[in-house]
C-alpha cells in the first residue's frame, strides 16, 4: 500500500494544478457551510451579549428593532424622542434607575452618544488615557474612534451639522476631548460620548451668548425693560464651550420636556423589571419598555430562518460540486485508459491499479480535510475578531 501512496503522491504532484483545484473545490464545499455557521454563531453571541447587558430599554412607541439598533448598537435610524419626564417617571417608581441616551448627531463619521457618566460605569468602560467628561463641552472617545481619527486628550472634535440644507438648524459644536476609553470590542469603541446636556446644546436647546442685559450694541436688542430683554437674530451663539464662556450657557424651557432618544433601564431585580413592564402594558406609563434580548432573539430567529434557505442553497451547490467532481474523476479515468492499460501490461494487477487510484482519492481527501481543519481552526481562533472587523470596525 505504501508503494501505491508513493506513486499516487508523485502523480498528484506532477499534476499539481489539477490537484490543487480539486482540493480547493472540496475545501470550499466542506468549509463554507461550517464556516458560515461559526461566523453566524459568533455574531449571535456578540449581539446577544450586548443585548443581555441591557436589561430594559425605554423609548417612544414604534419600531422596537429601530430602538434597539439605535440605542444599543448605535446604528440605524434614530427613533422618535421621548421626554426626560418619562425617564423621571421610571425613576420615581423606585424600581429601577435609568440612563438616558441621546442619538442623532455624529462627528466625522462617529455617532455622538449623549448620556450620563452612569453609562460608562454600567458598561464598565474604563478610561485608558485622560479622564471621563465632567462638564459641559467635554467628550470622551471610544478606542476605535480615537485610533481612526488620531485624537487624544487635549484635542478637539466638532459635531457634524445635522443637515447642510437646514440653515436654521443646530450648528456644529466644538468639544474638548478629555479622555479615550479602553477597547471594549463592541459598539462603544466606535462612539463619541458627551454629557446629555452637551448633546442638548448641539441640538440648540441650550446655547451660550453675550449677556443681553449688558450689551451696548443696540442692533442686538429689539426691546428692553426692567423685567425682560428681547434679543435680535443678530445675537451670535458660541460654537465652542470654553472656561471663559461656559457660564453664559443656559437652557430654554423645562428640562423635563427636553428630548432623549431612549433610556437604558436597570431594574433593582427581576421582580422590579416585571412590575415595570406591566405598567407599560397597562398604559399607566407612556412610550414602550422592551427587553432588547427578546428583540435581538427575534431578529436572530429571522436571520437563522434565512440561513436555513441559504444552507439549502449551499447544500444544493455543494451536491452539484461533488457530482461535478465525480464526473471529473470518471472522465479522468477514461482519459487515463492508455496509462492504466500500460500498468496492466507491465504486470500491475487490477487490484494494484485500483489501490493506486484509491490512494490518489484518499490523498486528495486527506489534503482537503487538513485544509478544512486549518480553515476552521483559524475561524475558531479569530472568529470574534473577524465578526468585529466585519460588523463593528
Amino acid at each position, binding site marked *: 500500500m505504501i508503494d501505491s501512496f508513493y506513486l499516487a503522491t508523485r502523480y498528484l504532484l506532477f499534476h499539481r494544478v489539477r490537484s490543487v483545484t480539486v482540493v480547493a473545490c472540496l475545501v470550499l464545499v466542506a468549509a463554507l457551510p461550517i464556516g458560515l455557521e461559526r461566523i453566524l454563531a459568533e455574531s449571535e453571541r456578540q449581539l446577544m451579549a450586548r443585548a443581555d447587558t441591557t436589561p430594559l430599554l425605554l423609548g417612544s412607541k414604534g419600531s422596537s428593532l429601530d430602538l434597539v439598533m439605535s440605542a444599543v448598537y448605535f446604528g440605524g435610524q434614530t427613533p422618535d424622542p421621548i421626554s426626560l419626564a418619562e425617564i423621571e417617571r421610571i*425613576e420615581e417608581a423606585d424600581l429601577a*434607575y*435609568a*440612563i*438616558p441616551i441621546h442619538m442623532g448627531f455624529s462627528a466625522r463619521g462617529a455617532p455622538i452618544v449623549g448620556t*450620563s*457618566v*452612569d453609562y460608562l*460605569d454600567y458598561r464598565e468602560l474604563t478610561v485608558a488615557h485622560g*479622564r*471621563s*467628561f*465632567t*462638564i*459641559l463641552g*467635554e467628550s470622551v472617545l471610544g478606542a476605535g474612534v480615537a485610533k481612526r481619527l488620531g485624537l487624544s486628550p487635549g484635542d478637539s472634535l466638532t459635531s457634524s451639522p445635522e443637515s447642510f440644507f437646514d440653515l436654521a438648524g443646530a450648528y456644529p459644536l466644538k468639544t474638548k476631548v*478629555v479622555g479615550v476609553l479602553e477597547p471594549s470590542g463592541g459598539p462603544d469603541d466606535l462612539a463619541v460620548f458627551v*454629557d446629555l*446636556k452637551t448633546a442638548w446644546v448641539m441640538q440648540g436647546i441650550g446655547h451660550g451668548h453675550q449677556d*443681553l*442685559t449688558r450689551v451696548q450694541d443696540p442692533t442686538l436688542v*429689539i*426691546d428692553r425693560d*426692567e*423685567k*425682560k*430683554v*428681547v*434679543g*435680535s*437674530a443678530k*445675537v451670535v451663539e458660541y460654537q465652542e464651550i470654553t472656561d471663559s464662556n*461656559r*457660564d453664559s*450657557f*443656559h*437652557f*430654554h*424651557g423645562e428640562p423635563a420636556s427636553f428630548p432623549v432618544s431612549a433610556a437604558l433601564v436597570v431594574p433593582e431585580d427581576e421582580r422590579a423589571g416585571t412590575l415595570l413592564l406591566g405598567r407599560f402594558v397597562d398604559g399607566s406609563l407612556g412610550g414602550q419598555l422592551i427587553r432588547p434580548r427578546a428583540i435581538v432573539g427575534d431578529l436572530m430567529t429571522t436571520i437563522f430562518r434565512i440561513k436555513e434557505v441559504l444552507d439549502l442553497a449551499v447544500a444544493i451547490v455543494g451536491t452539484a460540486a461533488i457530482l461535478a467532481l465525480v464526473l471529473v474523476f470518471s472522465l479522468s479515468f477514461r482519459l487515463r485508459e492508455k496509462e492504466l492499460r500500460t500498468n496492466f501490461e507491465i504486470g500491475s494487477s487490477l487490484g494494484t491499479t485500483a489501490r493506486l487510484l484509491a490512494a490518489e482519492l484518499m490523498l486528495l481527501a486527506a489534503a482537503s480535510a487538513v485544509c478544512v481543519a486549518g480553515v476552521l481552526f483559524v475561524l475558531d481562533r479569530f472568529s470574534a475578531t473577524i465578526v468585529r472587523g466585519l460588523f463593528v470596525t
Partner: protein
Amino acid sequence: MQRVIGSLRLVALIAVAGNALMPTPSVAEMSVYTVNYPLAYFAERIGGDAVTVHFPAPPGIDPAFWMPDPEVIGAYQAADLILLNGAGYAKWIGQASLPRRKLVDTSRSFRDAYLPGEKTPVHQHGPTGDHTHGQIAFTTWLDPKQAIEQARSIEAALVKQDAEHAASFARGADALVADLEELDRDLEAVFAAIEGESLLASHPVYSYLARRYGLDLRSLTWEPDADPGESGWQALDALLAARPARWMLWEARPLDSTTAKLDARGVGVVVFEVGVNRPDAGDFLSMMRDDLEALNRALGLR
C-alpha cells in the same frame, strides 16, 4: 533536633501573634458629597460613623456660585451619594456631569412650594422666541419644617444605600428632627413677639423664613462689606417711608459705617447667618441658635 522544634515553635508563635495584632478590616463607609453645609450637617447627624461626608467648597466662597474644578467633580462622580439641595441651588450642577442614580434632590417633596428668587431680568430670543425664567429662592433650609423634610429625604437615601444601618440612621434622623422642631418652636415664639411689624433684609435670602413665620419682610440687595451707595440709601428711605421697620437682617456683620447710618434711621442690625458654609467653630444648629439669640437680643426679649 530540639533546637529545630524550638525554632519552629517560635516561628509559629510569632505568626499567630502577628495575625492577632493585624487590624480587622473595617466595613467600607458610605461616601456622601453635598452641595452646601446644611446638607453636610444633616448627613453627618443622620449617618454618624457609617458615613463620610464631604463638602469640598472652599471656606469663604458661596457654594451656590462656586465652580469646582474637574478633579473635584470627579470626586463627586465617585461618591456613593450626592445630596442636592434642589430649587436650582448650586449653579455648577447645571453644567456638570454627575451620575443620575447617585443624585438625591432633598427638597423634591416640596418642590411645588418653591418661592421666586431674586428678581433679575430675563431674556428672550425674538418677539415670540425662547425665553429664560426667573430664579427660584434656594435657601430652603431656613424654614425648619422644610429642613426636616430634607433631613428625612437624606435618611431615606442613606437607608436605601445601606439598609444594615437603617436603625442607626433612624435614630440620627429622629434626634436631628427633634432639634429642628425645637428650633422651629423657638423661632416661632420670637417672631410672634413682633407680629405685624415690618422687617428688612439686606439680601433676598430669607423668603422661606418669612413665609414660615408670616413675616412682612422686604429685601434689598446690599453687601455687608460694601456701602450701598447713594441710590441704595435712597431706596431704603423709600421703603421706610412706605412702611417703617426697626430691624434689618444681615447674612454677616455689615461695615460700621453702614451700621451707624442704619442706626441713624432707627433700623437695627440683626446678623442672621444663612449657614451655607461650615463655621470655624460650632455647627449648623449652633449657628441657628446664635441667630435666634441675636434676634432675641435685638428685639429686647432677653
